[in-house]
């Protein structure tokens, strides 16, 4: 309950900051090369409530937010921002969830294997790859993979719209997951090394349990705690990555709308997506906090 109360001011801060930034912008959203007659401009401003004082506009926005209404899009006529988000988000969610699952699966497996053979060549190779995966941004990996696998070798489809086969998911999901695989592998390795050195693991070994059983029954849960706390930042990173990946592969998800909105100066759309993403991340962090307490009773003291 206390944590939930903490999430509300954070969300309010996000909304106020985002709202102020957009409204502090020099020039109106409908400024164009074409100069409009003054009365037309006044009518447009009135239609979008831009003639009201800022506090009143903000309250109107908040009121709409509570009803799930993010206002009309300035560029996509006849659509509300909420409709656009509802249209585009499911696809982004699907890609993001696939990438996250892949990252967890491979990251934890690679990190654990490296921790078991700490200092070996295998360990060093995995960690070298992890450093590379962390350093190189998605917008460098994605186009290079497309060029090699899709354009030169023609193994996989390069774009999204040209095909309906499931292979079109492969490149976007893998590129989205790669940096997270690297991060999770590093986190898992470090915490697994830490856990494996503890007394209860030595006891389990002394009882004659094999490595797989020790990992499954004893080591995995405590070693996963740092990975769990990384879930919030990981989702934020995947959202950021999805902006790039959707742009490169031409996937009609929310990330692409965000970039288009940003380039078109569609203020309400960009503001709406920022508020939506921020809410998502704040709620997710809250869920992680609560889950953390469930898995590790020692942190429930507060």
């Amino acid at each position: 309950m206390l944590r939930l109360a903490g999430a509300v001011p954070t969300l309010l801060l996000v909304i106020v900051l985002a709202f102020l930034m957009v409204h502090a912008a020099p020039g109106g959203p409908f400024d164009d090369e074409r100069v409009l007659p003054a009365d037309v401009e006044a009518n447009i401003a009135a239609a979008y409530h831009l003639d009201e004082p800022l506090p009143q506009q903000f309250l109107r926005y908040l009121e709409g937010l509570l009803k799930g209404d993010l206002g009309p899009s300035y560029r996509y006529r006849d659509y509300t921002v909420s409709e656009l988000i509802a249209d585009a988000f499911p696809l982004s969610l699907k890609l993001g969830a696939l990438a996250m699952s892949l990252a967890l699966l491979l990251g934890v497996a690679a990190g654990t294997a490296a921790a078991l053979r700490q200092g070996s060549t295998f360990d060093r190779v995995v960690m070298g790859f992890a450093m590379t995966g962390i350093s190189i941004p998605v917008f460098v990996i994605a186009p290079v993979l497309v060029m090699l696998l899709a354009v030169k070798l023609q193994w996989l489809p390069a774009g999204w719209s040209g095909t309906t086969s499931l292979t079109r998911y492969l490149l976007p999901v893998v590129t989205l997951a790669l940096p997270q695989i690297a991060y999770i592998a590093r986190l898992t390795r470090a915490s697994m090394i830490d856990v494996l050195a503890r007394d209860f693991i030595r006891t389990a070994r002394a009882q004659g349990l094999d490595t797989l059983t020790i990992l499954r029954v004893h080591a995995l849960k405590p070693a996963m705690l740092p990975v769990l706390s990384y879930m919030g930042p990981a989702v934020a990173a995947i959202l950021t990555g999805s902006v790039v990946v959707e742009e490169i592969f031409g996937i009609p998800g929310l990330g692409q709308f965000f970039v288009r909105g940003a380039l078109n100066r569609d203020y309400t759309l960009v503001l709406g997506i920022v508020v939506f993403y921020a809410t998502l991340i704040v709620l997710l962090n809250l869920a992680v906090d609560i889950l953390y307490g469930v898995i590790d009773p020692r942190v429930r003291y507060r």
Partner: protein
Amino acid sequence: MSIMANRTITISLGILLGIAAIALLGPWVSPNDYTSTNFDRLLSSPSFKGLHLFGTDDLGRDQFVRTMLGVRVTLLVAIVASLVSLIIGVAYGAIAGLVGGRVDAVMMRMVDTLYALPFIFFVILLMVAFERNFLLIFVAIGAVNWLDMARIVRGQTLSLREREFVEAARLGGAGMLRIVTRHIAPNLVGIVVVYVTLTIPQAILVESFLSFLGLGVQEPQTSLGALVDAGVNQMERASWMLLIPATLLAVILLCFNFLGDGLRDYFDARHTS
């Protein structure tokens, strides 16, 4: 142990200095410049003819000079943005650590709150709302990356404040200002250097991300992110336009990360020994 005996540090620093030197001197030596178009040589592959070492782009502009300019812009943004985050982070962290008590608790609670925000989206929002000028990019990126620095400096200041030599200075009659400048600040330098090195690749990442989306550095100026974007659009006809800037960006980021890691290990080892 001398710092230069550390292989990770020397190699990554050497590569970075090499790239920076070529980026500074290259465009000056090259007979080409970054805005001249040549419609006889559109998308020509890298060659020594006309000294187009990295080929030309879809407007016939020399890619070598453009890439080196991109490196310059990328490094400049990274360094200035890191300085901005250094100033904010050190000031914020030092104040929280020095004052302590309730002020510290409130200040750190604010940092925790800010950590939860998807900052990159706020930077994009800023770029949408305001003119996309250089200064704004610097400040926006710097304003994003100061949280880690504030946390580290605050923790270090808190622990330094309680150490015997600070107590001794206080007993010796030293004022607050003297304690901060003579006793606390010098002991923060090492850790601050490490974290600035680790902030630089993050700043590069944000800048190239923005430029890649077309929200950062604008034509005819360029940066590595903008060059990668241009390369993506031409990758079926001119692979060099993608591969060269992409590789350079990757190498620069890797070197900074290795440098930061190496420095951290170096300072840690000195601490424990």
